[in-house]
């Protein structure tokens, strides 16, 4: 009886140690943002989400072969209003070069998001991540946040925390676009 108890206790300790090793070795807490911070090359996490700009769903895999500016936003976010016209201009300017701006609406109401898109005349694709599952994989800290993905699906440049093309990140924004398009070394 005592031996059975000891075996169970040892088994429990071994299982907890195993979990600890797994957590240290494989855990991706902090998402891609944390891995980029450690200087790693990271593939854009895959997702398939409901579209807000039209019926149906959109997968980031559908955009393979294009440069993608992935912008997380929400209608209640004030800095998102500031950057929306810039993102639309970027889409219009680089669309023929094979660049897509992809909006990911996060922690929001669909009807509010659609009203926002209408107000700022956004024509680029927008998907809905109400449940936050995609934002978690990308390691989102808040909104707005913007990532750059090149034609082979690798995240390039530096993520931009806060509204794009502001005084403090204009260079990073332009460099991110150039890297995604493959125009920068």
């Amino acid at each position, binding site marked *: 009886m005592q031996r059975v108890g000891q075996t169970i206790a040892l088994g429990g300790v071994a299982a907890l140690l195993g979990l600890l090793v797994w957590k240290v070795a494989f855990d991706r807490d902090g998402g891609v943002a944390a891995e980029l911070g450690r200087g790693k090359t990271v593939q854009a996490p895959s997702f398939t989400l409901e579209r807000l700009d039209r019926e149906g769903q959109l997968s980031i895999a559908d955009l393979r072969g294009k440069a993608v500016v992935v912008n997380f936003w*929400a209608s*209640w*976010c004030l800095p998102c209003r500031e950057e929306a016209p810039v993102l639309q201009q970027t889409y219009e300017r680089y669309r023929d070069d094979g660049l897509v701006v992809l909006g990911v609406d996060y*922690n*929001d*109401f669909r009807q*509010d998001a659609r009203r926002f898109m209408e107000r700022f005349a956004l024509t680029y694709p927008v998907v809905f991540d*109400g449940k*936050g*599952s995609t934002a978690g994989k990308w390691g989102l800290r808040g909104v707005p946040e913007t990532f750059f993905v090149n034609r082979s699906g690798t995240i390039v440049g530096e993520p931009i925390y806060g509204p794009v093309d502001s005084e403090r990140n204009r260079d990073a924004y332009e460099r991110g676009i150039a890297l995604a398009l493959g125009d920068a070394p």
Partner: protein
Amino acid sequence: MTTRLAALLATAFLFGGAPSAGAAPSPSDLEAELVCPTCKTTLDQSDAPVARRMKQIIRERLAAGATEAEIKAELVDQFGSRVLAEPPKSGFDLLAWVVPLGLAAIGAVGVGALAWGWSRRPEAEPSPPLDPLLERRVDEALDRFDG
């Protein structure tokens, strides 16, 4: 009798919230049962922009005659079940209720079994009487100590 009582308790636990689900709740009732998805506190404790918007939606829906269940279903559709302060008592989320109760029950049975085992152990043998010589020396030492 015990089985029927256990079944009654389990039913009351699983469907405890059901009688009020169709009644008209107050906004503050709902705000205490729903969580802001950005700050993870209940809506009544949060002033985040999305929480303010959720409170506004709750008031609008209540004014339009929606029930508590309908409002919760709409918010879960938008944000997922993470906006519920208590996990649903169905599907996979039921585990959040059953596992802690199950572990507590297993622990209680384990403690009960140990206590039962200890209570049935034979009494310890009475210690042998002290050697008379040693006893006298102890008494003398104590007398010196007291004196």
